[in-house]
């Protein structure tokens, strides 16, 4: 299991962010910050991902896309909401087309502060989520097989 702990596959979705947090997420993956030293790589496929990074608030058009990406991810899974918009809508919270933070659509495990969030804090958020993933993996393993689905109520953590 130690190997899996250090091999976190990330899927990134831009809900309605201004791109500021998105390019900082990408900056995390490039040589200066290098998330790969913690075993993180980005995948485009939600079905193979452990961790969902969401930037920006939720609007009426992308709420279904976000739920669908989350739904495709296998358990155990965790969600990191990056930036002020992902928390509450941020500077756009009063806009007519913004419903609010990511938590209005899917359960969130870790919030990363900042507008735009800095790469250091994004990495911190990813590592915190990795710890949560580890707990969930242990819980999944130890749970009786027929009760597997109910044992990891994602929303209960919030």
């Amino acid at each position, binding site marked *: 299991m130690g190997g899996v702990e250090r091999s976190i596959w990330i899927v990134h979705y831009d809900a309605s962010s*201004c791109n500021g947090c998105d390019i900082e997420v990408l900056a995390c993956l490039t040589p200066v910050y290098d998330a790969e030293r913690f075993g993180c790589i980005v995948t485009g496929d939600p079905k193979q991902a452990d961790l969902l990074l969401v930037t920006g608030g939720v609007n009426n058009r*992308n709420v279904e896309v976000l739920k669908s990406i989350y739904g495709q991810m296998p358990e155990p899974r965790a969600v990191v909401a990056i930036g002020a918009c992902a928390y509450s809508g941020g*500077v756009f919270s009063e806009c007519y087309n913004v419903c609010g933070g990511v938590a209005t659509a899917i359960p969130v495990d870790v919030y990363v502060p900042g507008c735009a969030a800095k790469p250091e804090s994004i990495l911190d958020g990813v590592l915190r989520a990795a710890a949560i993933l580890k707990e969930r993996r242990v819980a999944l393993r130890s749970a009786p097989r027929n009760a597997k689905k109910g044992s990891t109520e994602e929303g209960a953590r919030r």
Partner: protein
Amino acid sequence: MSGSPNAGPGLTVIPFGPQHPVLPEPLHFDLTLQDEKVVDAIPQIGYIHRGLEMLVEKRDFTDYVHVAERICGICSFMHGMGYCEAIETIMDLTVPDRGRWLRTFWCELERVHSHLMWLGLAADAFGFENLFHATWRAREIVLDVAEETAGGRVIYGSCIVGGTSTNPENETLDRCVKELSKVRAETIRLAEVFIGEPTVRHRLEKVGVLGRGKAYALGAVGPMLRASGVDYDMRRKGYEAYPELTFATMVETSGDCMARAKVRIREIDESLRLLGEIVARMPGGPVAVPVKGAPEGEGWVRVEQPRGEALYFVRANGKRNPERFRVRTPTFANIPAMVEVMVGSQLADVPTIILTIDPCISCTER
């Protein structure tokens, strides 16, 4: 697969996006394919629409700069500046010399950061991971300079109505220019790979060709237009300190993806040269004028962003909250040209073609 309701016989419709590995942003296309060839592309938008233009009615006109900056995090400074300039036109404010030159400094810095970012993403789109990482490493120096002079890495927050809010010391600026000379050396090295490497040329040359007449007729802007041989640059209209600077406009004639890459690579070099000149000639004095009263009337400005010409319009009625704000962004202007280029291309080239217009969906949908 050809059972899709929209497709004719022998045609397949495949969705591209909104969550797609090569694009950090949600852009959605319905691509109609005949075998591997794209015969039709229909863009679907709205995934990042927030409605921030309407927010201007709820915000004080001096506070709205923060929202305007967040139209897009990649060209954030220029969005803030465009809004400020529009308000300054209405209120007849004259920004002090140092304020104007500092704004120009940040504009050019943003162009370097944006083009380097684009080069990296383009390399990622055609699967050259190593080049992607090398480009983004060079770009980090630019972000460090931005953080040191303005205060933020991507959202600068240094532009206010009437001037700038931060005033970096001349010694800091001199040191920054020294740092940026490293970026220049690195760009020359990267350009060799981009222009000379056969694998890169194979993916970019003669792909997505946009002719001069089509580019002009479809209203393309920025590097997309200049790569098709039209010499068009809003900076020459003269705003901020540009009338006092001489600079070259980069024009290529072949109109393919490689031409667009070349235009951007040459613009990075020219912008880095301009940054040195701006710092050498940086005037002293105050950076901002006090703002009294509220705007009344209409004002609009055009600025040259990394992606092309952007237009900002503000109408105000003498109250603290303006009535209307409108921005036309370069990606919006480039989408018709992109769709034109995509039709007839190979499916494998679609990510490269989308990337070569340097799409900024956050700007487009606002």
